[in-house]
């Protein structure tokens, strides 16, 4: 048994594994980049860089490859086993060990970002205020009791729990806060509602969702789903359609209360609100191309308002969130209001690449300095002998 584990450790710490993993990473970087000419960046990221395995289409020939996610896990294991545990530990290898630790920190930061970061956008018209931002790609189903006013609690089912439903499978979601279960029966990443007779799919109230090919840019996809509301009290199930561009959410009356169920891009709440006071743009002379643009916003947190300017190289950082100036939209009418768009990122590991690069640089400097000193000492000895 010990021999078995020794062999595993030897394999995981081998330089051969490093070479194989790094070669595949290089290959996947190339094919993943080329694939972006055919499909969206988001889809490429999902299929090649966030998966354990991928089947690459090489001119009609399916080529199975390990995904970057799996390769990076193997690389991390290889680094721990070979670059930290197995490596000879003396004064000559400290620099290499430190550099390996730096690479591991970088990989760890990537994992944190992949698992726990939030990325989206916030679009505001001048004079408007918001305290939540919207994902470009992720979806959610929000369930809330319909009220005219006052605070509302929304129950949120994130897209990762229903968007990958296999055909013929259903997912039933429940909560003690609502008097029904929501069954998601069929999901379309991109679809359009049509009169039921033209869609070929079973419809609800004469309307069916018709699946469409994914858009070139994944953020243009409009997801939809067939759902069923099953009252816990045992009443008849209520079928419904959800579509991300629907004008109003699905509305059902269960046990004397009205509930709304809506599908939309995933939304995250900010611990502060942002109000767009003014937007300005500067054009390249003689053209309609924006040279620079910036927004004056009021950030309010816990009742304390603060004026902040957000420009292309000057983001707003607050409570772990970073708001970058990413776009704008001209008023559609004369005298209308400008609309400014901010990319919003919450990444608990956003400083990790900096720190890991510092560690790697320190490790390599130490290693090269040691090598240089050793070389100089050898030269000195040779001169003396000569």
């Amino acid at each position, binding site marked *: 048994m010990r021999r078995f584990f020794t062999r595993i450790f030897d394999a995981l710490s081998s330089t051969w594994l490093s070479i194989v993993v790094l070669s595949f990473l290089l290959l996947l970087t190339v094919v993943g980049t080329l694939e972006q000419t055919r499909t969206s960046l988001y889809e490429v990221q999902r299929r090649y860089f966030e998966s354990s395995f991928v089947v690459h289409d090489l001119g009609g020939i399916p080529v199975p490859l390990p995904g970057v996610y799996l390769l990076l*896990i193997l690389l991390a294991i290889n680094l721990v086993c070979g670059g930290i545990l197995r490596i000879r530990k003396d004064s000559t290898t400290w620099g290499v060990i430190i550099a390996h630790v730096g690479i591991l920190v970088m990989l760890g930061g990537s994992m944190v970002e992949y698992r726990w970061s939030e990325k989206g956008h916030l679009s505001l018209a001048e004079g408007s205020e918001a305290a939540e931002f919207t994902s470009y790609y992720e979806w959610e189903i929000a369930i809330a009791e319909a009220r005219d006013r006052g605070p509302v609690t929304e129950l949120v089912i994130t897209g990762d729990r229903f968007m990958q439903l296999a055909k013929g499978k259903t997912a039933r979601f429940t909560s003690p806060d609502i008097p029904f279960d929501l069954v998601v029966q069929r999901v379309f990443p991109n679809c359009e509602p049509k009169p039921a007779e033209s869609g070929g799919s079973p419809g609800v109230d004469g309307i069916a969702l018709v699946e469409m090919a994914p858009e070139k840019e994944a953020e243009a996809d409009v997801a939809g789903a067939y759902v069923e509301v099953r009252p816990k009290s045992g009443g008849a199930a209520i079928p419904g359609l959800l579509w991300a561009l629907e004008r109003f959410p699905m509305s059902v009356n269960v046990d004397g209360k009205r509930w709304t169920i809506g599908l939309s891009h995933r939304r995250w709440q900010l611990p502060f609100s942002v109000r767009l006071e003014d937007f300005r743009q500067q054009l390249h002379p003689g053209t309609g191309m924006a040279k620079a643009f910036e927004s004056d916003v009021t950030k309010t947190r816990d009742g304390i308002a603060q004026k902040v300017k957000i420009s292309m190289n000057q983001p707003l950082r607050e409570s772990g969130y970073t708001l970058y100036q990413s776009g704008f939209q001209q008023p559609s009418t004369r005298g209308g209001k400008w609309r400014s768009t901010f990319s919003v990122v919450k990444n608990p590991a956003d400083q990790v690449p900096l720190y890991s690069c510092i560690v790697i640089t320190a490790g390599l400097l130490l290693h090269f300095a040691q090598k240089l000193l050793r070389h100089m000492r050898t030269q000195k000895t040779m001169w003396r002998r000569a």
Partner: protein
Amino acid sequence: MLKPSPILTAALLSFAVCGCGKDGDAVPIDGKRVLVAPRPEQRMAAGTKMRFSGPSMDSGGGSAQAAMPTLAWDLPAGWMELAPTQMRTGNFSVPAFPGLECTITILPGGGGGLAANLNRWRKQMGLPALTEADIAALPRVKLLGADAASIVMDGTYSGGQEGASPGFTMAAVVLDRPGAAIFVKMVGPTAAVRAEIGHFRALCASLRDTSATGPAAGGADTGSMKWTAPAGWTQGPAKQMRVVTFVPKDAPGVECYVTVLSGTGGGLTANLNRWRDQFGLPPLTAEEIAALPTLPVLGRPARMIEIDGGKSGLFGLVCELGTQTVFVKMTGPMESLRAERERFIAFCKSLS
């Protein structure tokens, strides 16, 4: 030498990390967030057809869009018409009675139902709820040619911004017709309401649905209209109320169509603001409408509006010809609309 067994082990480990869910089992909903106020769209109890009415759906025949009336009325003597709001299609005050207000509201999909609305108002007046039998027994008046429930309630009004107001009266007429409910309501001090109840009845009697006076009703002549289809646009199937429909080939979800209505078709302001209301946007003021860009269409300047509703939007053009009005609408996802903007303008200009 690389051994296969460690790789397999690592692959299995990675699967364990990825994890996967079980279909069909009850999955607890653990995401929760609190909003300080409901989202505007959550306030609307819309039926399936209303929820999906839009670019990709047939707006003729039974769609809720078609069921939404465009109302016109005769302003009673001594009354003043105020700017419409998001919820109020008609908004009136009576200068002689400052505390009096009258509103006309159209809600799609029944607006929650007759009983729910009547009893909500009764609650605002501090009165007990009516039973279904009580509601069925309410007197009926004619509204848009149909029988509408009529009610007058005296009590303490708590639905205004000034808190509880004793000695108030609310008069209301509700028409619950397929696809949309129409509410005409007047509320104010009892003496004022009693004095103006005749005008209120006259307003109700004067209501008319101008959306029903299109080509199908024989009001407009569209047979001689011509156009040039922009490159990449294909003509869609004929639909009720529409002169022609086009679908841009490279803009999924986008649809452009021409409608001609007799007379003013409800009026420029009402139509533009109805379109804006469909996207949850506040109405434009007269100054803002006057500032809208114009295009030369059919030999006249036609107002063009671009409504950005966030995900989806509308480009619209209204060309008033005197005896009839031409409407050109293009709806769909906002990004696609922007891409088709120049072709939309070219299409509008090509109308002859």
